């Protein structure tokens, strides 16, 4: 290896390292802060990257025993599970129909459905607040269950459409020659082959639910009913007092595990955006 190639390698490694640090520093910082003692946290001259005054589990104890954090996690799981069920029931059949049964018109309909994914909560949250109030669902987790499929169905329909298109048509045709109806071929032959696609839909729906903030902040008023992404930023700050240790612990716990899980599925997600969005 000559000097020029070696230099190029150093530049490459440094670029990668800089980006990795930029992306992950806030999370590392959350982790470090979680175990800091209060007198350490509130001393601007104390070395911030380690524990000069010793580490503590007190912040985590406060988080789990004295705040509603565990309840928020439970709320998020509840909403997530119900929304996943609704999304699967509606998006999987729609994705199949768009992939197989409706030709050119279906293709345009598919693009139309995908574009509704672009309609942001910030345009709809005001009228939806009124709708939710009229249905007497204010401050209820069911309001979130009702509204979240508005962004999970479009994306997952699109994802499943791409997934079904990748399965060769011969498979159903063979099943139908053997006497199955189209519907039976779909449920008995194609669905069992689509476990990977369905799993992807479940993971994405779940992450979308976990990330949602605007509707949660708008529809829910009492601390007990928040989801994690709304409860942590609005309720772990009491007045002007920030419980930084517990706050950072909550942020870390609620974001990193799902991110690791998501990482295994990300290639499908990208395929949904690029192949889907570009080739239509």
């Amino acid at each position: 290896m000559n000097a020029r190639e070696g230099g190029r390698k150093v530049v490459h490694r440094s670029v990668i390292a800089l980006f990795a640090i930029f992306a992950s520093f806030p999370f590392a910082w959350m982790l470090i802060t979680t175990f800091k003692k209060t007198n350490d946290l509130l001393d601007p001259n104390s070395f911030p990257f380690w524990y000069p005054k010793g580490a503590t589990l007190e912040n985590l104890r406060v988080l789990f025993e004295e705040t509603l954090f565990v309840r928020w996690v439970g709320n998020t799981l509840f909403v997530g599970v119900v929304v996943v069920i609704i999304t699967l029931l509606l998006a999987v059949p729609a994705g199949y129909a768009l992939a197989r049964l409706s030709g050119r018109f279906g293709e345009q309909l598919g693009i139309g459905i995908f574009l509704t994914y672009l309609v942001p909560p910030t345009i709809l949250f005001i009228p939806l607040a009124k709708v939710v109030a009229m249905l007497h669902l204010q401050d209820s987790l069911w309001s979130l269950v009702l509204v979240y499929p508005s962004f999970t169905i479009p994306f997952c329909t699109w994802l499943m459409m791409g997934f079904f298109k990748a399965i060769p048509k011969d498979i159903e045709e063979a099943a139908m020659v053997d006497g199955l109806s189209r519907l039976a071929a779909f449920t008995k032959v194609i669905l069992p082959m689509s476990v990977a696609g369905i799993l992807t839909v479940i993971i994405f729906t779940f992450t979308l639910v976990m990330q949602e903030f605007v509707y949660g902040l708008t529809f829910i008023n009492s601390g007990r009913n928040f989801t994690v992404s709304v409860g942590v930023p609005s309720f772990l700050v009491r007045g002007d007092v920030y419980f930084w240790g517990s706050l950072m612990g909550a942020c870390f716990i609620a974001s990193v595990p799902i991110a690791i899980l998501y990482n295994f599925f990300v290639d499908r997600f990208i395929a949904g955006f690029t192949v889907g969005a570009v080739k239509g």
Partner: protein
Amino acid sequence: MRVADSENALARFLIAPALIYIGAVIGVPFVLSLWFAVSDVTVSSTAGHFVGLSNFRLALEDPSFSRALRNTFLFAIASQLVVIVLATVLAVALQKDFRGKWVVRLLILLPWVAPVSLGSIGWLWILDSIYSVINYGMDHWLHMCGPEPGKTPCPVWLGQPALAMSSIIIVQVWRTLPLATVINLGGLTSIPQDIHDAAQIDGAGFFRTLFQITLPLVLPILLVAVLFGFVFAFTDMIVVWVLTRGGPYDMTQVLASLAFFKGIDGGDLAGASAIALFLFPVLAAAAILLLRLARRSEVV
């Protein structure tokens, strides 16, 4: 013929539930927001009256609205310009294979996958007015500033308008960079190796290949990534809500956050709807551009 008919019926039967649901939770509220914008509906009133365009006129006359409009464009355009450059650099760097690539990919994806509101709180602590770790570095390592008398005071990242706006933009870059990078990377890896080989045989160097061959080829996909990032940034209020709540003195308010504070905290649904509707033309334009892009790359 009979088979085709029954297949059509089945297609309708399979698609209808999804379409009806989307229509009910997206279409209906959208129409409602059009009505709200020309009415005087509040949180407590049951029915509103038609008031014409007065909500829009009031919005346009309000200085905090015009500032929010400017901030929204600044926020979306500046953050996405930075994202284009950084995402291209990062995607080119990630295209090579190296040891530990999957760890790096996981780390780089974190800001996109983690709930934005929680990631932004991490930044809130990093940018704290007294305990900011950045200020610690500037004080103890670079000796640029410090709290003691006689030293230059350290920056209050979220307390000074220009700094606060820059901080918000940087956090938005941090948050949208992963998506643009992975979409870009997908584009880069779809370029056939022959093209790179041919360029190398013809004696093109790294930068020449990059600017004259690679980038033009990934341009459509890069544009898709940027348009998505632009839409997400343009309509976002989470970063602003968590970091500054629009402060100091409404200087960092964007349209979405202004609509939130007016409509949900203030109860003025009509005025807030009018503000939020200003997002729509830009959204529609982005959607049309995306469609054009989709059609054009189908031809290619």
